[in-house]
């Protein structure tokens, strides 16, 4: 909770400081595709992580400079917990929330109806295991699914294209890679097992935004 509170304060402060003349507000939808992480145990190895799932988001941004903007994003991702070894697999319901602030380097809005942008920033990702715990879980020799939540610092990188539909309305396609440490609170390695590596969540999205 302490990490969550600090992150919100930081992001709010950043948003306020980046005062500019133009603001942009929008919503996006897409899907998240996560990479697996190897887990090695005394009885062998498996791959664990999160399943792909739908993603929804909202953002608000403002122009800081001619080619530089700042955006505060919120995203909701369906992220079922998952582990696989050989022909066996097991899963557990889960979701994730992301909150991040990105600096957007973009082409000039007045030069063309199409704008390209690159984004980089940071924030946090909240993982939540929401499935039903059971005394026995398949592949529990590697890791245990847990009904709990974990907050992880997150790096966000990506880019996209904005297309002017009307004077102040943009069609927006973008791509993000949310990079976090692996949430071992949710997928806890079994005794003798080890989970290592970063978790990448690749999220392509499409959305609309309004400039005012």
């Amino acid at each position, binding site marked *: 909770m302490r990490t969550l509170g600090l992150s919100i304060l930081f992001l709010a402060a950043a948003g306020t400081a980046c005062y500019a003349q133009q603001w942009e507000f929008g919503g996006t939808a897409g899907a998240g595709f996560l990479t697996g992480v190897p887990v090695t145990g005394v009885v062998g190895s498996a791959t664990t992580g999160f399943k792909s799932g739908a993603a929804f988001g909202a953002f608000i941004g403002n122009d800081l400079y001619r080619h530089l903007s700042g955006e505060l994003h919120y995203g909701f991702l369906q992220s079922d917990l998952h582990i696989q070894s050989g022909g066996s697999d097991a899963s557990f319901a889960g979701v994730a929330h992301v909150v991040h602030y990105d600096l957007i380097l973009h082409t000039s809005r007045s030069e063309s109806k199409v704008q390209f942008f690159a984004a980089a920033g940071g924030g946090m990702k909240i993982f939540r295991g929401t499935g*039903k*715990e*059971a*005394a*026995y*879980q*398949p592949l*529990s020799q590697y890791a*245990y*699914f*847990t*009904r*709990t939540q974990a907050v992880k610092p997150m790096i966000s990188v990506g880019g996209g294209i904005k297309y002017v539909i009307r004077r102040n309305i943009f069609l927006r396609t973008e791509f993000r890679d949310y990079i976090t440490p692996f949430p071992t*609170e949710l997928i*806890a390695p*079994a*005794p003798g097992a080890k989970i290592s590596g970063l978790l990448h969540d690749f999220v392509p999205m499409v959305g609309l935004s309004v400039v005012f």
Partner: protein
Amino acid sequence: MRWNCLISIVLAAAGLNFTLPCNAAGFGTVVAIGGQAADIALDESRGVVYVSNFAAHRIDVVSTADFTIHTSMNVPDAPGALALSPDFRLLAVAHYGDVSGSLSLTNPPNAVTLINLNDHTHQTIGTGDTPLGVAFINDGRLLVVTTTSFLLLDPVSGYVQPVDTFANLSKSLAIGAGTFPPQVVETEMAASADGYTVYGIADAGAGNAAQVLYRYDARQNQVFTFSLPATPTLLPRISVAADGSWAMAGYAVFDRYGHELAQYPDVVASANITGNAIDSKSGIIYAQIPDASTPLGPPFSPAVSPAAQVSSTKLPVLSIMDADNLTVRDRVGMPENIIGRAVLNAAGTMLYAVSDSGLMVLPIGSLNQYPRLTASQEDLLFQTSFCNSGVVTKNLTITDPGGGSTSFTIVANQNGVTVSPSSGVTPATVQVRVDPSAFQNSNGTATVPLLITSGQAVNVPRPVRVLINDPDQDQRGTVLDVPGYLSDILADPVRNRFYVLRQDRNQVLVFDGATYAPVATLRTATTPTRMAISMDRKYLLVGHDNSQMVMVYDLDSLQAQTPIMLPSGQYVRSMAESNQLMLAVAREGPAPSATGGTSACVGAACAAASAKGARIDSIDVSAVMATPLNSLGIYQNGVLPTTVLAPAPSGGSILGSMDDGTVFLYSAAENTFVGLRQDMPSLQGGYAASDYGNYLVGNTIFNKSLVPVGTLDASVGSSSGFYFAGKNAFRTTASAASGPGVIENIATLQNGLASPTRMSEAPLLPIKGVSFTRTVAPLSNNSAVVALTTSGVTVMAWHYDAAVAAPQIASVVNAADMTQPVAPGGLISVFGQQMSPVNMATQQIPLPTALGDSCLSVNGAPVPLLFVSSQQINAQLPFNLQGDATLTIHTPGGISDNYYFSISAVAPSVFRSGTAGPETGLATIVRDDNNQLVTPSNPIHPNNVITIYATGLGRTLPAVDTGLPAPADPLPQAVVQPNVTLGGMSLNVTYAGLVPGEVGVYQINASVPFGVPEGMDIPLVIDQGGATTTLSVRVVK
């Protein structure tokens, strides 16, 4: 004589007479009509019952609201059968007009009156011959059966269409005293709920002993008739299943093809007492059928019921039965006898019946509002052992199934058995106390009935059987209580199971061969007699004495398959399988045959069978059919009904044996009967066939030519059962049902040398009318031999007579986590060698103090046992022991050396018996929110409530007797309350004490605080008065 007659005789001999309360007349209402009722019709749309008053020439209209006659409709003479049209507009009345002598009826006698119930107009239509029965069919026409024909009468046009003709049926008026209208009419018909099917039964007429069951199919406009040479006669009472697929006539149930699906066992002939009604929705039949077990008087109705011609001391009793096999669920006293039609209302809550006084109304849907009695157990088995020969007590709970407070009295008319209190009000628990010293010379099992009576209850409480088993140390076998009349036992040749037929409840009891515990119950048809297993080992077949069906069960799924229907009039008494044919002894009973159809048995074979009373059929399981054999090879196919068949284990031959001394042999190799001899004046007892050309019946050894080649010693008792283990034969015998049994390993068949060993109780012996018994079966894995005995089943070790070394004790630990500390009332495991000749667990309550020929004593006190095996025994320490203790084990091999250990006041330990998926040995800590074991994948969270199952929490308040399950109210709490911490934080313990319903198992309920530390291995510590136990659990926030 039927098997059930014999059962009744045995029960009667045992003194198991039923008694009925003197005020059972409180159930039901009698409406005296002032005349003689012939038939009734229920009109729920108007809330009335029409009663045809045969003698007074009127239809009495009885209100179903107040059960009084509000009006009467005058009709022509002798109104007999009634029928109400489906639209409730017309009431049809058949006027019986078969008159002889000087009697003169004033109105046209042979007619049907149609009464329009809306405008009260009457229309009388002549039928030519005397109308006997009427029923409306689906299209509104009236089916009329007369003495000579079936007619269809159109109420609109008055047109009468002949459907079929009939042999003459008649009984002339006038009649003598005590003859009731249904005895005159001798027929009754009833339609299915949809009106498409009408069933009826009629007397076949003068000079014909048979009766006729007929079915009219409205879709085909065709009548199907079946001749019924039933004995005793089926009285004309018909009830039809809602879909018309079957009907009950008199005391028997028939399908649409005339197959007898079930007949009530043990029927006693009666001139007029019988009635039945089917509740198709609930699968129940309500019936009064006189039988040998009908309760005795004095009658509670005025003096002796005038219609009670069976016996003046038989009381009117309504049986509530399962519709498929007529298993009696309960029996309820009635004010008077049913002597005609019985009908249920649509809701199935009220039964209306023609009775002595006219109409009787029974609120069968409100039975729970009437006082009744039932006991919690059918049997109470008391056993003594070397460790415990003192007074034994057990509890018995008497309840009212409706939850009411009903007074009762319970008595045991036998010295040495006392009941306290001997009377009370339900619900009540009485203590049955047995002093074994009163039975110490029996060396077997004495049977004492506990009779439950009441001045209030309307039902007939079943007596409770008290069994007192008092064997000597040299006697072998563990007695398992299996209530009821057990008629056959069979071991599964490929599965570790055995099957027992419980005849009085129409069940196959399936027992596990490892634990000897019942694992399934299969419903059979009525009165199962013998079993057989098909040679492919896939199916179990069961024959019945009161059903034409042979039930077939898939032994893998334990599901019933399509039954095999025997030819009409045949009932399977015994079956045996071989590599060629499966044979069955089919008793020839009075049963229907399709009129004009092809007989199943023709020619000389039939004549021979009829002369003997039974025949041999071939049963084809895959084709689901049975076929009478034309001959038994060169011999006629006629055998006695008591004939039994014994298969050789590998299917090479089948031995047949009759009680007149005849034996015969079917050889699978030749696929024919190769021998039939009668060298003995009589035979009875056990019977078996070997794979080595040896055959045993009673006390006689036959060779493969069926020549008697040896006689077994008869001085050890009557023969009960045989089995072969390879070339070795074994026999069980007993001198009396209450004495010890004897099992002999007949080492040399030729000279009959045998080595007898006494069994713990007697195997079942032949009773009058049942000449042959199959009471013993070796389990397929050669682990044990199981036998039907006085109390139920006795299990003996395979090498029951082998020399056994004395038991040795290696260690004593608690049964939860297998560590040393043990406490009073806790469960313990004793490890050692030669501690029991068999592996056996028990489900008896209270726990027995002897199991599998083994018993334990601690400081001289007997210890209740849960499980025994050669190397481990699980038991409960008595609550009254503490401190230094000495343990000894007694087995057939002798007494162990003393084993010294210490009993702490408390020694908490958590069971490691939990399982989750493939994981075993888990600590039994349960999260209450999902009722699953706490594991790393189901961790403890803050605010969870957990239940910890343990043993060793010591004495409780209130105290609980050793060997008995803990009560639910009041909860027995541990005297020393435990503290539970998780990661150093105290948990709020809301309960610590015994688990209700369990023996020696405690539970601790605790709630987890919010601030509990999290981690993969957080210590959970139970501290009880300084005795601690610690486990690691995963905690997640």
